[in-house]
């Protein structure tokens, strides 16, 4: 039985000030991928991917499974190391320091610092099962950003209320539905006040009737001006909120552009084929 409070109409997920100020990245694109290559052993998973995401935009990655979407997403926050090319977030090279023409690997602690400003939401939620909903949300602000406990708690209550889980603060993940868990996971990522949010098939592990509640939160987030890169199979979401859409297959971004071009009048045969199957 769910006793959620529905997300209040027009309730924002981001503070007005945060959105108005915008991420201070000096006119840089939020994500810039240049000829990104990635292989697992002999298998090339990404074969020279280029793309840009501007601040406050939502970029949706579509495509068949195994096409490299999730790998690309995981490269953005350096969960995977890229083998060639360059990947910048907010103008900063991810995972490496460039001195002259030489790349130096970053220490784990410095990579962690970079990741702290990039939120990520996983297909399998990955909530910390030994912590309640509110403890999940408070953990990183307290331990990483050294926010004082009281303030972290207040912000966590606030965030969980905004995603409609004000009644579930002290519930363990095991007692929450998939949709509720995923909303906690989104709140947990937002608690770090990220400048970029990555979503890795956030609704793929959910029962069909729970997909809507998670998509609603994501739509609100997009409207509030969060910069987002979303890997999903939800075509409706892509049409409604995406500023850019890319179709990935065989490790290549086959086609990218605004949704009303790529999804309505695709240029590439591969895109047409994919859309015909998905929309059938």
């Amino acid at each position, binding site marked *: 039985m769910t006793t959620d409070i529905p997300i209040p109409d027009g309730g924002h997920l981001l503070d007005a000030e945060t959105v108005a100020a915008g991420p201070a990245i000096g006119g840089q694109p939020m994500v810039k991928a240049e000829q990104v290559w990635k292989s697992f052993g002999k298998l090339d998973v990404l074969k020279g991917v280029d793309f840009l995401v501007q601040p406050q935009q939502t970029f949706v990655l579509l495509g068949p499974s195994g096409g490299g979407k999730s790998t690309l997403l995981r490269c953005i926050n350096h*969960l995977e190391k890229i083998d060639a090319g360059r990947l910048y977030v907010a103008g900063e090279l991810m995972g490496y320091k460039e001195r002259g023409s030489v790349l130096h690997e970053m220490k784990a602690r410095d990579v*962690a610092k970079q990741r702290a400003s990039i939120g990520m939401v996983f297909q399998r939620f990955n909530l910390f099962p030994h912590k309640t909903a509110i403890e999940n949300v408070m953990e990183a602000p307290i331990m990483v950003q050294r926010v004082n406990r009281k303030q972290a708690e207040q912000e966590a209550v606030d965030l969980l209320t905004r995603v409609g889980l004000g009644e579930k603060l002290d519930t363990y993940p*095991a007692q929450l539905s998939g949709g509720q868990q995923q909303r906690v996971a989104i709140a947990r990522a937002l608690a770090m006040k990220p400048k970029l949010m990555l979503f890795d098939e956030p609704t793929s592990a959910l029962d069909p009737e729970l997909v809507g509640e998670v998509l609603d939160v994501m739509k609100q987030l997009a409207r509030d001006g969060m910069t987002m890169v979303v890997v999903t199979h939800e075509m409706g979401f892509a049409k409604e909120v995406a500023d850019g859409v890319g179709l990935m297959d065989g490790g290549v971004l086959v086609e990218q552009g605004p949704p009303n071009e790529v999804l309505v009048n695709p240029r590439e045969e591969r895109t047409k084929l994919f859309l015909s199957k998905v929309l059938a």
Partner: protein
Amino acid sequence: MAAAGGPAAAARPEAIKAIPIRHWGRWISAVIVVYLLVALMFSFIKNPVVEWSVVWEYLFKPYTLIGVGLTIAITFACMVVGAVGGVALAVMRLSENPVLSWIAWAYIWFFRGTPVYVQILIWGNIGVLWSHFYGGLPFTGIVFTSVSSGPLVNNLFVVGVLALGLNEAAYAAELVRAGIISVDAGQTEAASSLGMAPTLTMRRIVLPQAMRVIIPTFGNETISMLKTTSLLAVLGGAVELFSRMQQVYAQTLQIMPLLVVACIWYLFITSILTLIQARLEAYFGKGFGEKEAEAAEKRGAKRAQRTLISSKGRAGSGYS
């Protein structure tokens, strides 16, 4: 009330009363086993070598009770050394740092690869090996400080705890490592994506979850350790229960009665530990038990009170 049946509800047929299968074989074998057991017990209890008066005499003697206390203390101390060392070794073993990983591997290789009995003897004779411990630079002859190994070697309690504790650490390390590996990789990824550095992730996210797997197994190790302490008798002191019983029968030659005293006490303590162990397993096996949910609810109630008090401050911070 009868209306609940509805039109299709037929009367429930009579419950089946079948004659159960008679397990004659079980009855016969049970009788034979009980008969043999009683015969065995009878011949043991009535045996003049087991002098029950001596058993009673020594069972609650202060000399014995102190031995029981020492055995429990050594067991506890060894498990603390084992737990701390085990966690450290497991983390080192899984570390990306090849030096740490190799040191842990070599340690585990040595302590698991040699008999604990031999290890106890090595620790017991450490004074023969090194009469002094030197602080200095090896091979250069430079010595800053030098301490006699006497105080260590002569304290059999410390020697025993070192021997068994360091051995236990090697076994505990493998337990902890299995526990750490059992935690889903998604947990580490989620923590990293929140900007948590590897050490913090290990301490706050991975180890607490690994503990759920480790702690019940660790209970078993404790029960096993309690019995292993009896091997310390080889050191010759009177540092735990069994060596004390040995000291007595070496003089009185009442071997069997004193072994019975030792058995009674070991059985008594292991039984208690087994009960605690069963509780632990029930608690941790549940995953997220009612107790935790209850505790969380209480915390929530406290917060609700606090927020009520500070609600004036919070009301202004809203937005619409």
